Each structure stands twice: as structure tokens, then as C-alpha cells.
């Protein structure tokens, strides 16, 4: 099919485009020198990563925890919100429709400072929790929009059929609606994790003392040249995530 080849070609080109800098990144992690030139193969950055970088690992750990929790909560809240907007009427619907656009729109730095002002004025202690709250907040509209567009042509008759067959509200939700929304929910989840892992500006302002995330840690190195230790960490992260994905597939195979 002609269209199929076109989209396949685009996909492959895009993959190359996306992975090109990644290849540079991976190669540099094995470069014994720090400049652009190849100075010889070396594992020293990996050595430093595993043996001398306690602070980096702590930031990394915090980043992962915050990414997973904020993505989870925002996906749950956003999905429910999308369902409410599509199929229900309630008093504050108009209000919700308006405010759900907004977090997309405000520039990072403004959101960061205004959240900081909010937290300090209610004397809420800055720390990992404030980072979690901020990340969940900016993730929600992304999930909302993705799930909404998925709901756009959702064939409601299958839900009605479920009710006719005696399903409760909860059963209709968990057994009919959510499974059909899954690709949207997963897209939302992936998007949220991505946004959270990489956020710097908002996190800088709402982080508490000692609660550094990976982007904060990396950015603080910027003037001195970010060490290839970060490249090594990125390689480990990519390898780890791919391994995880492969293993879940295997598990899925056994479950089916």
C-alpha cells in the first residue's frame, strides 16, 4: 500500500532524527576525553558514575519517584475529568472547560514563581511534595486533552449496553470505558512521565533545600561543562527502560 510505505518511510526517518543525537550521546559516554574529539575508549565515566556519584543518584531517584507518582495521579485525575466533560453535566462544567486549557498556556518561569509565592504564603514547606504537586498540575491538561480526543468518537452505545446488562456504574467504568480508553490513557501517562523527568524551571523554584532532581543537578553543572557522567547515566537509563519494556512484553505473553 502506497500510504503504508510513505508512513513507514516517515517513521524510519523520524527515528533516525530522534536517535541521531542519542548516538552522539552514547558514543561520548565512552570517550575518555571531555571535548568533542575522540580521545580513546574508556569506561571511566561509568566507573565514576557507579562509585563516586552518590548525589547524582539521589537526584535521579527523586526524579523517578516524582515522575511516576505525578504521572500516575495526573493521569487518573485527567482521565476522570475528561470523562466528566464528555458525558456529564454538572454545575461547574463551563468553569472546568475554561480552566483546563490554562496550565498549558502559562510560561514555565511564571508558573514556577507564582506557585512558589502560593506555597510560601500558605506556609507550605518546600520539598519533594511541592515538586510533586507542581508536576501533577502541569501534567493534568495534557492527559485531559489526549483522553478527550480519544473520547471524541467513543461509541457510547457499548456503555449503554453494559448498563442494560445490569452493570453498575463502577463496572461500566472499569470494564468497558477504561479498557477502550487505554491507548489514550497510556499516551497521557507517557507524556506526563516525559514532561516530569525533564522539567527544570518550575522545579527550580518549588524545590525545597536538599530535594534536587536530575535536571536541577545537571543544570547546575552547566557552566563547568556537563560531565559525561550524565551521558553514562543516560545510557544506563535507556538500556534499563528498554530492558523493562522487553520484560513486560515477556510477562504479557505469559499472561495471555
Amino acid at each position, binding site marked *: 500500500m502506497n500510504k503504508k510505505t510513505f508512513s513507514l518511510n*516517515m517513521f524510519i526517518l523520524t527515528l533516525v532524527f530522534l536517535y541521531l543525537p542519542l548516538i552522539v550521546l552514547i558514543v561520548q559516554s565512552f570517550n575518555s576525553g571531555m571535548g568533542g574529539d575522540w580521545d580513546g575508549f574508556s569506561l571511566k565515566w561509568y566507573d565514576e558514575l557507579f562509585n563516586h556519584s552518590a548525589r547524582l543518584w539521589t537526584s535521579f531517584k527523586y526524579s523517578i519517584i516524582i515522575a511516576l507518582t505525578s504521572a500516575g495521579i495526573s493521569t487518573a485525575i485527567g482521565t476522570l475529568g475528561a470523562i466528566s466533560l464528555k458525558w456529564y453535566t454538572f454545575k461547574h462544567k463551563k468553569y472546568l472547560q475554561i480552566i483546563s486549557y490554562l496550565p498549558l498556556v502559562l510560561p514555565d518561569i511564571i508558573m514556577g514563581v507564582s506557585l512558589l509565592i502560593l506555597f510560601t504564603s500558605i506556609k507550605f514547606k518546600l520539598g519533594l511534595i511541592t515538586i510533586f504537586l*507542581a508536576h501533577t498540575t502541569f501534567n493534568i491538561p495534557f492527559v485531559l486533552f489526549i483522553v478527550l480526543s480519544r473520547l471524541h468518537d467513543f461509541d457510547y452505545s457499548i456503555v449503554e449496553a453494559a448498563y442494560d446488562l445490569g452493570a453498575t456504574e463502577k463496572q461500566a467504568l472499569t470494564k468497558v470505558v477504561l479498557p477502550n480508553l487505554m491507548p489514550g490513557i497510556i499516551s497521557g501517562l507517557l507524556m506526563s512521565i*516525559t514532561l516530569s523527568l525533564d522539567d527544570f524551571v518550575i522545579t527550580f523554584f518549588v524545590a525545597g533545600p536538599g530535594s534536587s532532581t536530575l535536571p536541577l543537578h545537571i*543544570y547546575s553543572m552547566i557552566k563547568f561543562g556537563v560531565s559525561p557522567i550524565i551521558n553514562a547515566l543516560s545510557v544506563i537509563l535507556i538500556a534499563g527502560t528498554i530492558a523493562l519494556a522487553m520484560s513486560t512484553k515477556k510477562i504479557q505473553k505469559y499472561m495471555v
Partner: protein
Amino acid sequence: MKNQRSGLVYSAPITLWLTLLFVVPTLIVIVYSFLKKGTYGGVEWIFSANGYNFFSSSYFLKVVWNTVEISVAATVITVLIAIPVALYIATSKYKNFLLFLIIVPFWTNFLIRIYSWIALLGNNGLLNKLFIKLGLEPHQFLYNKSAVILVSVYAYLPYAILPLYSAIEKFDFAMIDAARDLGASKMTAYSKTFLPNIKPGIITATLFTFIPALGSYAIPKLVGGNNSQMLGNIIARELTITRNWPKAAAISTILTIVTVAFIFTLSKYDKDHKGGDV
């Protein structure tokens, strides 16, 4: 719907959360934009509309134009690429794996990826070194508007691919076959059945790319040159260097209003995007 009261339950978490953690900060920003500038940052609780004076600065319109130009270019390119890519993933047997493959590069740190682009396309980067080896003149690929657009496309691709994937995945491709059976060409079949049906996905992808691009700050700073200042840079400078919080708040407020108007028009164009009652 079975139970209308469930609407309250479903919508309560999101409404509460966004109200507390988003509407309130936005109100703070709007209020601050109408206050007097503190001498050393912060605000004094005296009314002043001076924050909105930025319109009169000659450089302001130039930066707005730059920002719009770069954002539109980046968005158009990104969405055009994202559609076939999302199409391929959604119709593939290995959709979850492919989706994953697309996302994984974005879990490496943003800064590192930008530096990798600089290592590739910089004045002393790999590509130029290759040029020199081949006897060609080195070319300055970076530190200009095109570089900002290129790196923006790179950065926003997943934001466009994900929503498009979600929208395309539920498209019933039998419609294409039906159209073909009725005598339509491939082109017509796709443009008249496929594209209109994934319109919400296209709109979402456009919003997810265009709006963050408007507020872009790090990309122009790192790979932009002398003529690629964007609004995000101005806002950051006003906030941190000039310490004019009301001005930074005012520019952000106007940016917010303009973008909301844009979204509003876009969703009016797709009337049932926000969903009515069933």
C-alpha cells in the same frame, strides 16, 4: 448516562486540583501585573498599570514577530511529520513497542540532547569536520532561527505524536476501504475520511506544540543566535535581571489571554471537540 451525580465525582478531583494549584497562581500573576514594581524585585501593594508599558518598547514587537514566526514554523513541521509517524505506529502490530521507541530518547535529559545537537551541527561539530575533510567550506548551521526551529521540532515531536496516536488508533480503517470501493482515489479517501476523523487529534497536537513553543526559553538561548530572541527570554529577563515582576507578569498575562483566545477559536472550529451531552 446512568447517574448524573457521578459527574460531580468525576469532575471534582480535577476541578479542585486545578483551582487550588493553577487558578490561584494565575490570579496571583494577574494581580501582580497591576501592582507597583518593588525596587529590588517583588511588588508593592499599590495599583499601577506600568507593567503593561512594554507595548511601547520598540524591540517588543520584533520579538513577538520572531516568536510567532518560529513557533508557527516549528508547529507546522512537527505536526506534518507527526501524522504519518503516528499513523504508522497506530496501524502496526507492535504499536506499544514502537510508541516506546519514540518516547525513550526523551527520557534522556533535555540539556544533554541539545549539547549532542551542538556536537553534531556546531561550528566545530562532526558535520563540519566532515565537510572540511571532504574539502568543503564549513557552514554555520547553528546559532540562528533555523536552528531554533529544527531543535524545537526535535523537542516537540513526542508532544504531537502521542495525541495523534491516541486519535488515530481508534480510527476504523474500513472507512478507507469503503471510500476506495466507492471509487475514490487514495488521496481523496484519506483526505475525506481519515483526516476529518482525526481532527481532534490534529488540533491537540497543534496546541501541544504551538503553545509551549511560544513560551520557549532554553532552546533560543542555547542554539539561537543574535536574531532569535523569543518572548520566553524577555519574560525571564524581566523577572530575574531587571527584577520587574509586574512587567513579567503583564507580558505573561497578555500571552495567556492571546493563547486562550486562540484555543477558543480553534475549538469553535471543531464544535464538538469539548464534548456536549450525549
